[in-house]
């Protein structure tokens, strides 16, 4: 288990606007994703844990070892921390073959033991045919495999992966995810995964920390976070496109209903605990949860909003429709094919899909 409380200020300079990191979290064995955009502090957090950056304040514990403690002035060198750190920018030594790269990482073991470990690792990570080659001669996906193998050579107590799928094509990415799940099974250590890819969080992570401007905006399982984002900023980071300012006009806990007014429309939703009548809130609906029908002169029913279709964009599996009033709807392709001749549209907001923030 790793427990970290990290405070670090980086003063503004000519080439940066300055930054302040202030986070506190724990991670048990399993994958914990650090989710955030570039510049949200993911790499800085990793550098602090691995010992390349000295925090101004805080404390970092790995199992029962203190890696850093500002109060007692403990700041172990990177070499003493036993962190497997896979940097964002590759980092396989170009002047060595893959086997030599692995041997370099196992340097502290006695000769025979080292030999055995290297051979074992080469086999486990399917590097047998590649071990004699140099990093420049193999694909990005194979490099990633070797990087993971090298990071795990020294039996680390935590694995830090900085954007591992960055720059990988889709098949290599799938392969990496499969590999990471296997690693997770074989090594019961915390694996911290920095990523800006929500899908990756869902595929791999048990826990997720949403990082924004050097702070943790929300933590929880990916499903929980997507179901109930803690703030409109988190919702935006998660790619929720329908965010509207709205007002709560009725709340009925007995019947588990509520009414919301947004723009000039009235919507019925489920009861929103913790909110009061008249609250100004953010209404948050995922594009995939909305439904559309053709109006064709029909009456506007409850929870339907008439809207003009402005733009259609094709996606691999679905179609995205942009409506007037900043409403986005994501629709299965065949569903859209069936409806594409509609003249006027009604967008339907299912009550269970409405979230307020």
């Amino acid at each position, binding site marked *: 288990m790793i427990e970290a409380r990290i405070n670090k200020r980086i003063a503004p300079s000519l080439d940066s606007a300055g930054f302040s990191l202030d986070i506190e979290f724990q991670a048990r064995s399993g994958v914990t994703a650090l989710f955030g955009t570039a510049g949200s502090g993911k790499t800085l957090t990793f550098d602090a844990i691995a010992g390349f950056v000295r925090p101004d304040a805080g404390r970092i514990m790995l199992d029962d070892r203190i890696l850093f403690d500002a109060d007692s002035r403990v700041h172990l060198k990177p*070499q003493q921390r036993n962190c497997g750190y896979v940097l964002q920018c590759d980092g396989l*030594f*170009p*002047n*060595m073959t893959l086997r030599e790269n692995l041997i370099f990482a196992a*340097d502290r073991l006695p000769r025979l033991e080292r030999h055995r470990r290297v051979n074992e690792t080469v086999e486990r990570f399917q590097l047998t045919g590649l071990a004699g080659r140099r990093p420049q001669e193999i694909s990005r996906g194979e490099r990633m495999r070797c990087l993971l193998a090298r*990071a795990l*050579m*020294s039996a680390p107590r935590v694995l830090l992966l900085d954007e591992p799928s960055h720059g990988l094509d889709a098949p290599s990415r799938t392969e990496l995810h499969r590999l990471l799940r296997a690693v997770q099974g074989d090594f019961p250590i915390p694996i911290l995964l920095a990523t800006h890819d929500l899908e990756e969080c869902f595929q791999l992570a048990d826990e997720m920390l949403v990082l924004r401007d050097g702070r943790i905006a929300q933590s929880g399982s990916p499903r929980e976070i997507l179901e109930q984002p803690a703030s409109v900023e988190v919702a935006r980071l998660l790619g929720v496109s329908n965010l509207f300012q709205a007002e709560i006009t009725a709340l009925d806990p007995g019947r588990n209903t509520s009414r919301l007014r947004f723009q000039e429309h009235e919507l019925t939703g489920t009861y929103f605990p913790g909110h009061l009548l008249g609250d100004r809130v953010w209404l948050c609906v995922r594009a995939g949860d909305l439904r559309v029908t053709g109006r064709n002169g029909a009456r506007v029913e409850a929870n339907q909003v008439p809207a003009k279709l402005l733009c259609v964009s094709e996606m691999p599996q679905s179609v995205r429709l942009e409506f007037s009033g900043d409403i986005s709807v994501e629709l299965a392709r065949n569903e859209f094919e069936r409806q594409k001749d509609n003249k006027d549209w009604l967008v339907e907001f299912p009550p269970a899909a409405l979230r307020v923030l």
Partner: protein
Amino acid sequence: MTANWFPLWLSLRVAVLATLVSVAFGLWMAWVLANREFRGKELVYALVTLPLVLPPTVLGYYLLVVLGTSSPLGHLYESLFGAPLVFTWQAAVVASTLHAIPLLTKSARAAFETTGRNYEKAARAIGASDWRVFWRVTLPLSRRAVAAASLTAFARALGDFGVTLMIAGNLPGKTQTAAVGIYDAIQRGDTRAARVLVLALSVATLAIVYAANRLGPRPVAE
């Protein structure tokens, strides 16, 4: 009359020794400057590179004061080796070294600070000591730049004149290097001897500088 090859031979010997010493010191200095933070770091760097711009006479004067027979260092040398350092060919090595060090330190520091930083980081993260990181990662990745700098330093050491004249003197057959020998020959009016040395030095340094430029500091792609 056969040409006197002694000055060339001495220059070569002096330059080889000076290069060895300056490579050892310059790489260490460059590593410290590139990797350690301490107060007065840039002042140290300025002092190390000062010989590039200081008039040879000023530098020579300092060396005479520091290494002269009446100085503590001079005494130490004399008691260790039984003879004073100044006005020997070993003093010429000191003079050349002093000029070669800044060239090495400058290039090596620049190379260490730009080349392979991420590889060093990766190496430290998997537990390699600073010593191992230097020999196995930093140096191999910046070897072209270091080799080029060493060649340039060698060429510079081969042609040192001012400081050598000040502290090693101009003793034919003892401390007279090629560069000093040319000056001496011109003074004597022996243009033929001067021409031989001028030609030899020019060709040698041209070849070395050309090789150094060809090597160039071509950085390893990150």
